[in-house]
């Protein structure tokens, strides 16, 4: 892979991961709002009387957000978000005032976020499948005159260990090893 292609791929991967992180924080923010202000959220979304349901959705959002931010492979967590979006869409669609213009805008918003989530989940899957881009090649950056295996211990022959940094005898290796060649 050329250096330019490498940089392009690396940038794309970085952006995907940044987008995933952004959506993770968004999920946590939304979840916290749902958990702390269920009545307000239920009112805005036309689901008055379903405060417990709203709060449960909030817990789901928080868990998903933490999963996206903390997981080594955030892809599956992003798909959980997509499933959650579908669930939210269905719930909002069945809400009592779903036909009001405000609710239509809300549904459109959820659909937009779902599209973003699905795109991001797809991109994360692609990264997983193709593996990480090869790193810029620094394998000629040894800094040592010979291969490391040949340089192992090269400094020991003329290095004097400062007594204040030496390991106390009780913590030294067992059985004892030749400390200095």
């Amino acid at each position, binding site marked *: 892979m050329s250096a330019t292609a490498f*940089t392009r791929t690396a*940038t794309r991967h970085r952006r995907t991961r940044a987008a995933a*992180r952004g959506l*993770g924080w968004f999920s946590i923010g939304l979840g916290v709002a749902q958990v702390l202000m269920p009545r307000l959220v239920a009112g805005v979304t036309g689901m008055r009387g379903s405060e417990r349901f709203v709060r449960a959705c909030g817990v789901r959002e928080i868990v998903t957000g*933490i999963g996206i*931010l*903390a997981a*080594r492979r955030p892809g599956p967590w992003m798909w959980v978000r997509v499933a959650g979006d579908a669930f939210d869409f269905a719930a909002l669609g069945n809400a009592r005032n779903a036909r009001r213009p405000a609710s239509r805008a809300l549904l459109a918003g959820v659909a937009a976020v779902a599209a973003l989530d699905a795109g991001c989940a797809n991109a994360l899957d692609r990264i997983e499948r193709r593996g*990480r*881009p*090869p*790193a*810029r*090649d*620094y*394998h*000629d*950056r*040894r*800094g*040592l*005159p010979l*291969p*490391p*295996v040949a*340089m*192992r*211990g*090269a*400094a*020991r022959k003329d*290095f004097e*260990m*400062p007594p204040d*940094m*030496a*390991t*106390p005898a*009780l*913590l*030294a*290796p067992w059985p004892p*090893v*030749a*400390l200095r060649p």
Partner: protein
Amino acid sequence: MKALCWHGKKDVRCDTVPDPRIEDPRDAIVKVTSCAICGSDLHLYDGFMMGMESGDILGHEFMGEVVEVGAADHRLKVGDRVVVPFTICCGECEQCCRGNFSVCERSNRNKALADKTFGHSTAGLFGYTHLTGGYAGGQAEYVRVPYADVAPVKITSGLSDDQVLFLGDILPTGWQAAVQCDIQPTDTVAIWGAGPVGQFAVRSAVLLGAKQVIAIDRVPERLGMAQAGGATTINCEDESVVERLNELTGGKGPEKCIDAVGMEAHATQSLDSLYDRAKQAIMLETDRPHVLREMIYVCRPAGTLSVPGVYGGLIDKLPFGALMNKGLTLRTGQTHVNRWTSDLLRRIEEGQIDPAFVVTHVAALEDGPEMYKTFRDKKDGCIKVVLKP
């Protein structure tokens, strides 16, 4: 003159500032030929270090030519080529006499402030917080070097700037991190962070005879460079560090662990880092000690933890019970640079190590603000930036 100045979080500018002048007979003025951006400069850039003031000149890795010396400086003369260690030391106090140069008792001119913050003052540092004296730094065309008759390392051989510049900080820092481990031929040394200090710690551990050196990071370029230096690598984004370290050590854990990451462990790497980031956001914690926690957990009982990574304030949820019950030795501190400079300069001259391998980006001083971003975001395979004023 031109200098890179700190103006706030993520706000570094190349400003025109007054030239420095001799303020004390032991001072010297150095015309900078090369300076570098250090990982610990990023703590200032990211706003995690308290005690910064707008307009502070950054930079503590620099070298150049002496252009003026004070009347009492009989060691340097105009025209000398010098590398200036980042720790400023008087050479006369009790700590300096013991070789503990980074805790010099005299060189911090804001001693009262440091006494209040840390209990007792440590040495003055170039281009850092006012807790360490607030001295103007070396990312500039000229620098005033206090106590210039003590620390600057004269370079008389024909070595290039890139080969000797790092004698002022990251090479001795990586070296001291390994020395503090008192590496034995049977030891596995695990190093968290394969940035510039981690790279030098890898090579130092190899040269000091470690049986196995393991580097842990999430940036492929850094892991590649660590591998070139002799390390087995763990990409902490792809695999569990604890499981892999146990696997590589027959389930016993590494004897020696080095934290070359410090206070800014990747915030979304693990649940505990996420928790730290949230606490940081509401100012209940200053540092993110994920690496310290992991080292304490995975280190073999009776092992040693060496911490060259910079921490600035308060940390939370440190498993001190494990640290105590496992009988671990914890060694910390800013680097006592001058303890190691003669030995390391000799090793460079003899060709045992060539520190220039770590330089990935060279730019003009004016491009410094952009290079801070590149280095911080690890863009373009950036591992070490050298600036030429």
